[in-house]
C-alpha cells in the first residue's frame, strides 16, 4: 500500500529522475548555474501554486493568473517609472492583483458564472490591456536597488526570490492542513450544497480564494520584474497552463474536493525536471511538448480513481476471461 501513496510515488519519480540525471552527467546537473536556473524557473510558479491549489480544491479554476502576473508587473513598472518609491509601487502592484482577483471572484461567486468562462474572458481582456497600455514594448531603467528584492543572496547563497517561493509553498501547505478557513475549500469542492447547509459562507470563501490567487500572482509579478530589472509585455504568459499542468500531475482533481499543495509542488518540480533533463541530455527540444503532454495524460488517468473506471476495467477483464474460456473449451 505504501507504493500507492501518491505523495510517495511523486517523490520517487522525482528522485529517480534526479539520480538518472546525476548518473548521466553529474557535472552538468550539479552545476551552480543549472541549479539556479532550475530554481528560478520554478520560483514564480511556486509562489502562485499554493493559492491556485486551494482554489482548484474548492472546484474553481483561474486562467487569468498568467495575465495577472503581467498586469501587476506593468503597474509596478509604470509606478516606478513615474518616480514613486519602491514600497509604494509594490503596494500598488499588489492592489492591482487583488482587484482583478476580486472582479473574478465576484462574477463567479455572486453572479454564478462558470469560472472557466469568466477567467477565459478575463485572460483575453487582461492580455489586451497589457499590450495596449505598454504599447507592446518592454521597459527598463528602474532604480538600482530594486534588484535586491529578488536577487539579494541570503548567506551569500540563496536568493530571496527562491526563499520566498519556498516559504509560500510551506505556508499554503500548512494552511490547507491546519487552518479552519482554508479547509472549508475541501468541503465546498466535495459537495457544495452540503457545505452551504453546514453554514459555510460559500460565496465569501470563493471570493476570498480568487482574491488570494490574484494577490499571489501579483507578488510573483513584482518578483519577476525585480529579478530581470525590466518589464516585458509577455511576462507570465506561459504560467497559467504551467501551473495547472503541475497541479493536475500532483493529483488535484478538477472537480474539486481533494488535493494537496505539497503534491502540486512535486508535480511542478517534475515538469521542470523534464524540461531541464531534455536540455541537459541533449535531446532535441521538439520532444518537449509531446513528452509533457503524454505525462499529463497518463497522470490525469492515474489520478482519476473512480468507480466507473474500475467498473469498466472489471468488465473488460470479465470479457477477456470469457474469451479465454471459450478458447480453452
Amino acid at each position, binding site marked *: 500500500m505504501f507504493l500507492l501513496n501518491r505523495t510517495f510515488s511523486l517523490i520517487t519519480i522525482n528522485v529517480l529522475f534526479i539520480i538518472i540525471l546525476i548518473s548521466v552527467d553529474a557535472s552538468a546537473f550539479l552545476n551552480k548555474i543549472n541549479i539556479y536556473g532550475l530554481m528560478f524557473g520554478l520560483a514564480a510558479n511556486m509562489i502562485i501554486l499554493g493559492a491556485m491549489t486551494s482554489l482548484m480544491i474548492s472546484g474553481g*479554476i483561474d486562467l487569468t493568473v498568467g495575465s495577472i502576473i503581467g498586469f501587476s508587473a506593468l503597474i509596478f513598472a509604470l509606478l516606478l517609472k513615474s518616480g514613486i518609491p519602491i514600497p509604494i509601487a509594490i503596494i500598488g502592484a499588489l492592489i492591482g492583483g487583488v482587484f482583478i482577483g476580486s472582479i473574478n471572484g465576484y*462574477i463567479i461567486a455572486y*453572479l*454564478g*458564472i*462558470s469560472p*472557466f*468562462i*469568466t477567467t*477565459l*474572458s*478575463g*485572460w*483575453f*481582456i*487582461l*492580455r*489586451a*490591456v497589457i*499590450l*495596449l497600455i505598454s504599447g*507592446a514594448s518592454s521597459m527598463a531603467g528602474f532604480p538600482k536597488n530594486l534588484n535586491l528584492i529578488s536577487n539579494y543572496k541570503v548567506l551569500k547563497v540563496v536568493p530571496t526570490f527562491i526563499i520566498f517561493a519556498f516559504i509560500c509553498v510551506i505556508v499554503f501547505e500548512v494552511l490547507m492542513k491546519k487552518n479552519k478557513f482554508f479547509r472549508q475549500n475541501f468541503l465546498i469542492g466535495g459537495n457544495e450544497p452540503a457545505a452551504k447547509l453546514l453554514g459555510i459562507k460559500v460565496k465569501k470563501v470563493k471570493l476570498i480564494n480568487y482574491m488570494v490567487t490574484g494577490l499571489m500572482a501579483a507578488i510573483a509579478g513584482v518578483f519577476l520584474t525585480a529579478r530581470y530589472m525590466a518589464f516585458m509585455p509577455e511576462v507570465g504568459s506561459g504560467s497559467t*497552463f504551467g501551473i*495547472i*499542468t503541475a497541479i*493536475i500531475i500532483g493529483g488535484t*482533481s*478538477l*472537480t474539486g474536493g481533494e488535493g494537496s499543495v505539497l503534491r502540486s509542488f512535486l508535480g511542478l518540480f517534475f515538469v521542470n525536471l523534464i524540461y531541464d533533463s531534455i536540455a541537459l541530455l541533449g535531446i*532535441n527540444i*521538439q*520532444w*518537449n*511538448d*509531446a*513528452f*509533457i*503532454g*503524454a*505525462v*499529463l*495524460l497518463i497522470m*490525469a*488517468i492515474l489520478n*482519476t480513481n*473512480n468507480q*466507473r*473506471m474500475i467498473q*469498466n476495467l472489471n468488465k473488460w477483464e470479465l470479457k477477456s476471461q470469457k474469451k479465454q474460456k471459450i478458447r480453452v473449451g
Partner: protein
Amino acid sequence: MKSFFKNIFIKREVVLLLVIILLLTVVGLLNPKDFFSQENFKAYMTVISIRVIVACGMTVLMISGGFDMSVGGQSAMLGILFGIMVFKGVNITISIITTIIFGIAAGLIIGFIVSKLNVNPFMVTLGGMFLFSGIAIIIAFVGGAGKFQDQFVTVRPLPGIHGIAGGSFHGVEYIVFYMVGILVFYYVFLKKNKFLRQNFYIGTNESAARLVGIKVDKLKIFNYALVGLMVAIAAILQASRYEFATAVANENYPLEIIAAVIIGGASLSGGEGSIIGSFLGVCLLTLIYNSTIILGIKPAWYTLLIGLILLISVLYNEFIRKKFVIFKVK
C-alpha cells in the same frame, strides 16, 4: 407588441445578427473601399469557413457537456501531416484519407479517455493540446520541413492542391461551399436526427440519460471523433487554400473557437447550443478581427473585444435564465 420584443430579445441569434449588422455598417461607413472589396470578402470567408467547420463539431461536443482544448494542437498536427505528405509527392487522395484517419484517431483516443476512463475533459484535452502540438513539431522535423528562426516549421509551396479549396465557382471559392454543406448537415441533423439529439439529454442530465438507456459513452466517443474529423477537414482545406502548412500550434485557436461557440449560446455545463448561433459567433469574432485590420487598429483590441463579448454574452445568458425561465434548479 411587448411580447414580440421580449421574444426577439430572448432569441440569441437575432441579437447576434443585429450586432453583426451594426458592426458591418459602422466599419463599412468608416472604410467602404477596402471593406467591401472582393479580396477582403474572400479572405474573410476563408477564415470563417475554416473556423465554422471546427466550431460545428465543437458545438455538438459542448451540447453533450464535453469540450476540447486540443483542437489547436490537432489542427497543427493534421495540417503539417497533410502538408508534408503532399510535399513529398504522395498521391493527394491518399494524403487526404490519411489525414482524416489521423484526425478521427486523435478524437477517438481523447473520447475514450474522457468517457470510458471518466477523466475530466479539461485535463485530458490540456494533455492532448501539448501532446498533439509536440507531435506536430516532431512530424515536421522527421519529414524535413523548412526551419525558420529555430521554431517556425513550415512547408511551402504545396504544388497542385490549391484547387481543392481555392478553386472558384462564379467567384465564390469552393471552401465556402464546403462550409455551407457542413453547416446544413449539422443543422438538419441536430434538429431531426435521433442519434445526435441524444446529446441534449446527455448534456442536461448525464445519469438520467444513462438510466433511460442512451449509450452515453459511445456517443461521447463519437462526438470527440467528430471533432477530430472536422479539424482534419478544416486543416486540409486550410493547407490547400493557402498552399502552406505550419506545425506551430496557435494556442489561442481552441480558446477562440470555444469562445465563439459560447457566444453562440452554448454553455460549458452542456445541454444548450445551436449551430446557427455558433456560426454567427464565429462570424462576429472574425468580423471584429477583420475590422481591426481594415481600420488599422492594433490587434490587441481584437483580443480585448473577444473577452468583453464573451463575458457579456455569458452574463446575458444568466440574466435570461433568471428572468424568463420559470423553473429553477437549486
